[in-house]
Structure formats: structure tokens, C-alpha cells
């Protein structure tokens, strides 16, 4: 029940009201001495036209209870008891009963039927003016959230008398968000001024902003009522027009920033999915059509681990992803090694046949997962630190989970590069890739290196699955959704080259998202695919061409 909350808040605002009494209203507190009690009674009996005055006098008392009473008035919870004409606050109780509360002392004074009391009459005008006044009172609240609400509430107000109050509030305000709202409210009120220079000043303030509210206010100045301009002054109109155009430019800029962010985040998802492929396809020459299913296995591993956490240690849920990462890597890598030893090693040098065989494996994995976990989407939770979003100036939101995925994919890229360039295994792998016979002659166990390489590629796909489970549905079809894109990335970027995969993923992601606003999501994707097909015409080996074991087909 909102009324209750309002009252509670009213009492908690005790300090605030004290503050107002001292800082603000004391200089003009002409009738401060008046007893609140009698004023409340007067509020119940006064004519509608006089009520505003009574309210003003109540505020002037500076008593902490005033806010509670006014909130009850606005919330239509203020009643007059018929028996003794006492004004009370009524809260809904059991049945049709009302729980009566003394507005001044706050004490409960018993129940009453709805026929025993009469609601204190208000009208819309009074309520909105009281709301605005209360807004001004809360401008000084110690709670920034309340100050923010108050400032935002003032946006609808056209009360020029508020301006000095806003001025004071602004000079004291330290919270940037509240300050921003205050500036906006101030400009909004100044736009109602009769003086052209005041309105011009307000336009000047709004001109520097990009939020939708300022935009609405500015464009309102350019409206016509029939033949006459709503804004009589031509200078103000011109300024508003300039400001709007400028705002449009900045908004465009921020929109581009947002699309870039989305593009980079899509690119990093693609990078994660394609990095393993760059190793299995690029380095080993194996067309692993089951690569998407390795991603899917990673996502399902995350799901299983999270279920375990939920059951055994819900308080440690935030750590589930940290456990899921190595687990997903292991699961996918093991499946990958099994695939390589059981099937793919018989097909080296026959890339088209590996394509068919691994497609078969992918069907089997999909069906197996479907049989175990069911065909529907599985819910994978995000730890708290990944939720939320930061909002930037122009009202665009950049969600944190995408930011983490961008960072994560870069970390994985770095780690894989390190493994390939610095570790003994990486050295062996490169040796086998470049010259298998020579490597074997030097005593490198080529078969094992093959299996490990394939396992590495698959394991990275599993890690990608952990990341994807945070932004996409976990279903048996998860891998299918990414396999075409991943191949595009690798083919576009150049086979066998992690930097190629990086460049390919990022450019595909960004181009895709930049195309989306004017071409639509589907058409954008089609355009990208067509562009890649055309690109391959020009550079059949991709952006960064490298030589690998079976690359020359």
C-alpha cells in the first residue's frame, strides 16, 4: 500500500524537514508560531479555494509532521471523523475498516468504518500544487534519491517562484545526477518566463545536453498554434533550432558509439567462438562442423555447475563461473580429443570428408544433449557483478555483461597466443604444422600433438560456451547458431592466424551492428554474408593468408 510507504518516508524525513525549517523557511516564517494542530483541523473544514493557503501556512510551521500530512492529503488518505470533526489519517485495515492515525502525534487512535469518516476534499489543482510544493521541500533531503525524484518532479512545474529555491539547492548540491536534474528543472521553469532573455538563457543551458527531456522542451519551442508561434521571440526560436541541430549531431555520435560497442561485443563473441576454429581449421586443416557443439557443451557445463552451486552452496553462486570455466574447457577438450583419436585422425588430408564426419558427430552430440537435458532452453544465471549497465550521457546503455565478455575474449586471445608462442607445446604444434615429417624425425610425437591441438581448439570453444551462456539461450541448437558465423570469421580473417580471427571477428561484428540501424538485423546479416562472398573473390585466402598443413587444397 503506497500510502503507508509515503507516511513512513514522511517520518524518516524528520531531519530533512528540520533542515528546511532552519535553512529555508526560517527567514520567511511569519506564521511559524501557529499550532499545527489547529491548522490541520482548519484543513478539514476550509473551503477548497482556501485550502492552498492553509497548506502554505502548515509548511511555514516547519514541523516535521507536515510532510506526512500533505502526503496523506495528496494520496486521499486524509479524513474528517464525523463524531468530533477531528482530522485523521486513515489507512486501509481489515474488511472495510480504516485504521485511524493522529496526524500530529502519529499515534494509532482506533478503527472506524468508512461511514464514520469523510474524506477531506481536494481537487486536481490543489493536489498537483501540493505535490510541487512537497517536491521543493524534498529538494533538501539528505537522501540523494529523494532529491533526484524531487528535481525530476519539478520538470512538470511552471512555477517561476521555485527558481530561487532551485538556485539555493543547486549551489548546495554535490551529487552529479541530482545536479543534472536540477539544472534541467531550472531550465524547464525558466522557459516559462515572460522575459525573452530568460528563455534564451534556458535554451543555452539545454543546448549543451542530449537527454530526451531537453529535446522535447526545445522542440516544443518550435511548434505553432495555428499561425502564431508558441515561442514569440525569433531569437529564442533560432537558438532552439541551432541547439536542436547540434543535439542531433551529438546524439548521432553517441548512437554510433553505442553501435560500435555492440559491434565490438558481438565481435568478441564471434572471436571466442572462432578462436578454437582458427586452431582446428586453420592450423590443422580439419573442418570441424561439430565446433558449434563444443561451444554448446561448454554452455551446458556452465548450467550443470550452476545447478550444483544452487543445490550445495547458494551463497557462493558468484563463483560458479570461475569453476565453470576450467570445467567447460576440460569437458570440451576431452570430447575433442576423443573425436580426434576416434575419427578425425583417419581423415587427415581429406578436408571434405572431415566435414561430413564431424557433421555427423555434431548431430549425435546435439541429440545426446537433447535427450539428457530436454529440448527447451536452460536458464543460466549471471553473478551479480555481471548484471546492470552503465548509462551514458545520451540515454544509451552499455550493459556490463557485454563489457566483461569483451575483456574476457581479449584475455583468452592473449592466453592462447602465449600458449602458441611461448610454451613447449605451442612450439611442437607449430613444428608439426609446418613440417610433419621433420617434426617426427626430431622426436615429436605427432599423433599426440594432433590430439592435444584438437583438444585445445575444442577447449577454447567450451570456454566460449561459458561466455555465451551469459548472453544467449542455452539450448541444443546453440552451436548451430554460431557455426556459420564462426567459419565466416575464420575464412574472412585468413586461415590459421589468430590475429586474422581477431580482425575478422571484430570487423564482422562492427560492420554487422553498424549496418543494422538502416538495413535491419536480417538484411544487415545478409549484406555481410554477401560482402564476405565477394571478398573471398578478391582474397581467396582471407585477410591474413598463412600457410598451414592442409590449407592448400
Amino acid at each position, binding site marked *: 500500500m503506497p500510502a503507508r510507504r509515503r507516511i513512513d518516508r514522511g517520518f524518516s524525513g524528520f531531519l530533512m524537514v528540520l533542515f528546511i525549517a532552519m535553512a529555508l523557511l526560517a527567514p520567511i516564517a511569519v506564521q511559524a508560531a501557529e499550532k499545527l494542530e489547529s491548522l490541520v483541523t482548519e484543513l478539514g473544514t476550509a473551503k477548497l479555494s482556501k485550502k492552498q493557503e492553509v497548506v502554505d501556512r502548515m509548511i511555514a510551521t516547519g514541523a516535521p509532521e507536515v510532510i506526512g500530512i500533505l502526503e496523506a492529503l495528496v494520496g486521499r488518505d486524509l479524513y474528517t471523523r464525523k463524531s468530533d470533526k477531528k482530522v485523521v489519517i486513515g489507512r486501509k485495515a481489515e474488511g472495510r475498516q480504516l485504521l485511524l492515525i493522529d496526524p500530529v502525534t502519529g499515534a494509532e487512535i482506533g478503527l472506524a468504518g468508512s461511514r464514520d469518516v469523510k474524506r477531506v476534499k481536494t481537487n486536481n489543482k490543489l493536489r498537483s500544487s501540493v505535490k510541487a510544493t512537497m517536491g521543493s521541500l524534498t529538494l533538501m533531503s539528505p537522501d540523494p534519491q529523494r532529491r533526484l525524484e524531487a528535481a525530476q518532479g519539478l520538470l512538470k512545474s511552471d512555477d517561476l517562484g521555485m527558481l530561487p529555491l532551485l538556485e539555493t539547492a543547486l549551489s548546495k548540491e554535490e551529487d552529479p545526477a541530482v545536479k543534472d536534474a536540477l539544472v534541467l528543472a531550472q531550465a524547464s521553469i525558466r522557459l516559462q518566463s515572460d522575459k525573452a532573455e530568460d528563455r534564451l538563457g534556458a535554451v543555452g543551458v539545454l543546448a549543451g545536453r542530449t537527454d530526451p527531456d531537453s529535446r522535447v522542451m526545445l522542440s516544443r519551442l518550435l511548434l505553432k498554434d495555428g499561425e502564431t508561434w508558441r515561442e514569440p521571440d525569433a531569437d529564442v526560436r533560432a537558438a532552439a533550432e541551432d541547439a536542436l541541430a547540434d543535439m542531433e549531431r551529438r546524439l548521432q555520435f553517441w548512437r554510433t558509439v553505442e553501435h560500435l560497442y555492440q559491434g565490438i561485443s558481438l565481435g568478441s563473441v564471434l572471436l571466442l567462438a572462432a578462436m578454437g576454429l582458427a586452431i582446428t581449421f586453420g592450423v590443422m586443416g580439419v*573442418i570441424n*562442423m561439430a565446433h558449434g557443439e563444443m561451444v554448446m557443451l561448454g554452455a551446458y557445463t556452465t548450467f550443470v555447475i550452476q545447478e550444483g552451486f544452487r543445490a550445495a552452496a547458494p551463497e557462493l553462486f558468484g563463483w560458479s563461473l570461475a569453476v565453470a570455466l576450467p570445467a567447460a574447457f576440460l569437458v570440451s577438450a576431452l570430447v575433442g580429443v576423443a573425436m580426434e583419436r576416434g*575419427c578425425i585422425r*583417419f*581423415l587427415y*588430408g*581429406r*578436408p*571434405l*570428408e*572431415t*566435414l*561430413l*564426419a564431424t*557433421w*555427423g*558427430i*555434431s*548431430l*549425435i552430440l*546435439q*541429440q*545426446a544433449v*537433447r*535427450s539428457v537435458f530436454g529440448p527447451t532452453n536452460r536458464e543460466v544465471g549471471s553473478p551479480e557483478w555481471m548484471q546492470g549497465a552503465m548509462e551514458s550521457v545520451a540515454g544509451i546503455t552499455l550493459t556490463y555483461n557485454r563489457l566483461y565478455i569483451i575483456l574476457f575474449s581479449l584475455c583468452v586471445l592473449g592466453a592462447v597466443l602465449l600458449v602458441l608462442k611461448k610454451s613447449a607445446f605451442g612450439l611442437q604444434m607449430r613444428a608439426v604444422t609446418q613440417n610433419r615429417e621433420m617434426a617426427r624425425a626430431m622426436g615429436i610425437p605427432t599423433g599426440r600433438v594432433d590430439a592435444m591441438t584438437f583438444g585445445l581448439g575444442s577447449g577454447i570453444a567450451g570456454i566460449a560456451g561459458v561466455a555465451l551462456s551469459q548472453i544467449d539461450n542455452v539450448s541444443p541448437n546453440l552451436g*548451430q547458431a554460431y557455426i*556459420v558465423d564462426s*567459419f*565466416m570469421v575464420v*575464412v574472412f580473417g585468413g586461415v590459421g592466424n589468430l590475429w586474422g580471427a581477431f580482425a575478422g571477428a571484430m570487423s564482422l561484428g562492427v560492420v554487422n551492428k553498424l549496418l543494422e540501424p538502416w538495413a535491419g538485423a*536480417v*538484411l544487415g*546479416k*545478409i549484406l555481410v*554474408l*554477401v560482402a*564476405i*562472398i*565477394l571478398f*573471398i*573473390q*578478391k582474397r*581467396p585466402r582471407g585477410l591474413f593468408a598463412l600457410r598451414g598443413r592442409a590449407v592448400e*587444397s
Partner: protein
Amino acid sequence: MSLLQRLYAPQPQAQGKGRLASVILLTVLAAIAILVPLLNLTMPPGSALHVPTYLVSLLGKYLCFAMLALSIDLIWGFCGILSLGHGAFFALGGYAMGMHLMRQIGERGVYGHPILPDFMVFLNWKELPWYWYGFDIFPFAVVMALFVPGLLAFVFGWLAFRSRVSGVYLSIITQAMTYALMLAFFRNDMGFGGNNGLTDFKDLLGFDLQADTTRAALLAATCIALGGCYLMCRAIVASKLGRLIAAIRDDEPRVRFLGYRVENFKLFVFVLSAMIAGLAGALYVPQVGIINPGEFTPANSIEAVIWVAIGGRGTLYGAIAGGVLVNYAKTVLTGLIPEIWLFALGGMFIAVTLFFPKGLVGSIPAAVDWMKTKAGGGGGASSAPLAKEAGE
């Protein structure tokens, strides 16, 4: 043997086997075309010899798939180009026929609009898009069912072969092609019915599509078309041109060094194969009564490739057998235990590539040879020339 010798050397044995298989295949097709409709139409439903109508449609469907497999075998088995996008050509042919069938509905649609198909009325379209013009004429629709896939294959192949995109790369971009088409056809504003596709067909050339006689006639037509396509493909692969194409499969650079414009030959086979696939799609749609963007999914195209691999790559009759066999298995298995089907299909992919690189039917000649040697008959061991795996 040098390449030239291999190209022009007579291969009586291989041809002899091919001829025998061709005779068997054509006899079976003729038997299906004549017997099945006959038994369906003349025998009373209770009779043991009666062929139920659903079986007629099912057979027709299998034969359409077999035709798609034939087209893939022509390009993959003989030219070494693994196309993962033939499902797109099939679907385009199907859409051409579907558009004709849509226009045949006339005022019998739910909304009763004389010109616009139901889905367009539903989407508030005011007039027929230009690319629907002419589809009310049957011959035009048939020409389009061949022309549109052919044109797409021509443009795509011209770009790809000219810049020597081959092997895996070609496979992947053909997959991207069908994926892009799928996305496009799923859109409502493309004017092809969005994700519902085209359906609710009434009749073809004035004959009711639900009538037994029409279904029987469609089956016969499919048999004739399949037989005709088979004979054409057989003629091509047996000709000098066919040997050149096989040479391209086996060693493309050498054929190029000999002075042939390899890309033109590849393009020819690719376009021809796409047109056969389009024809298969056009025959498929009236028999199943629907065409939707699902036909464009990459998985469909890859599945069609496995029909060929299982039947026997590089043997045209093997592809046809594979198309029928795998689809029959699919009907049986999905009917019995739906979950099993994907396991079975996946298993087939793996088993065929590992153990039967020539496919089931393709392995028969080798098996026959082996039996002959065992019996002491001797007999040449050379089978249909599949000297080198494609893509190696």
C-alpha cells in the same frame, strides 16, 4: 598412365557396368511410373495389391530427393566441387512452382482476393509485386524453376571459379549462400510468405492436387524427369566432356596447363546441376503441398550430401539409390523412435566417411570383383575411376 592417356583411353569395363546399372535403374523407374499408379487407381483399397495414396506421394517425394542427390553427385562426384548449398537451388525451384500454385488458387483463398495470395492480403499488400508477374502461366513457372537456380548458380559460380575459390572455401561460401537466402526468405516483406512459406494449394493445370489421379500423374512425371536427368548426366559423364570434368576433379592445375578454361567447365556443370536441383524442387512442391524457408537451412543441404555419400559418390545411380534409401530410413526411424533418427543419421555420416568412402552402392563393383577373384575368375580390379579423393 599419363593424364592424356587416361582421358582418352577406352574404359569398356567401367562403361559396361554403368550400362547394366543404367538399365536396372531405368527399368525400376519405368516400373514405378507405370505399376504404382496402376495399382493405386485400379485395385480396390482392400486388395493386397493396392498401393495406398500416401505411399504414392511418399515415393514421389523420395524420387524428388533422389533427383537432388543426382544433381549433387554430378557436381561433387564428377567435378569434385562439394556444394553445401544445393538445398537452396532445390528450394528456389520449389518456390517457383509454389508461386504458380499460389496463383492457381485464384478466388478460392481464405480472403477470396482474385489476384493477391492470402498472405499478401493479410499483410495489407495492395498489388502483386513485379516478380510474381507471369507465374500464373505454367510454362513460365517451369522455366523459372530452372532459370532462377541456374542464374544464381551462374553468378555465384562465375565469381567463385574465376577467382579459383575451391575445396573447403567453396563449400563454406555455398553454405553461407543458402544461410543468407534462408534469412531473406524468413522475412515477411520479401513477398514469399515469410516463415509460413507457400501452402494451401488447390490444383495444378486444372487438376485437383488431392485427387489420386493427379498424385499418380505427378509420380509418373517425377519418374520421367528423374530418368531423363539421369540419362542426360550419364551422357555427359560418358562423353569427352565428362572425362575432362573428371580430370578437373583429379588434377585441376594439369588440366589448366593443357590449355582448358577450367572455370568454364566447372561453371557449366555447376549451373546444370543447380537446374536439376531446381527441377527436383519444382516437382517436390505439388506433391508435399508446401514450400517454406526451412528448405534453405544449411542442415538440409548437408543432409542431401550424405545421401550421395552413402549411395556412392561418382556413380550416378548410387546417388539416386542413396537419396531413396536414406529418406526411407528416415521415414521408418522417425516413425518408430524420433530421437533415434539424429543418432542414426550422424552415425551414417561417420561410418560412410570412415568405412565406405565410395558409398554403399559404389562399393558393389569392388565387392563383385573381390568375389570373382575369390572364385578364381580373375577379372579386372579397376572400377569406376575415382582416382583421387576430391579436395585432396
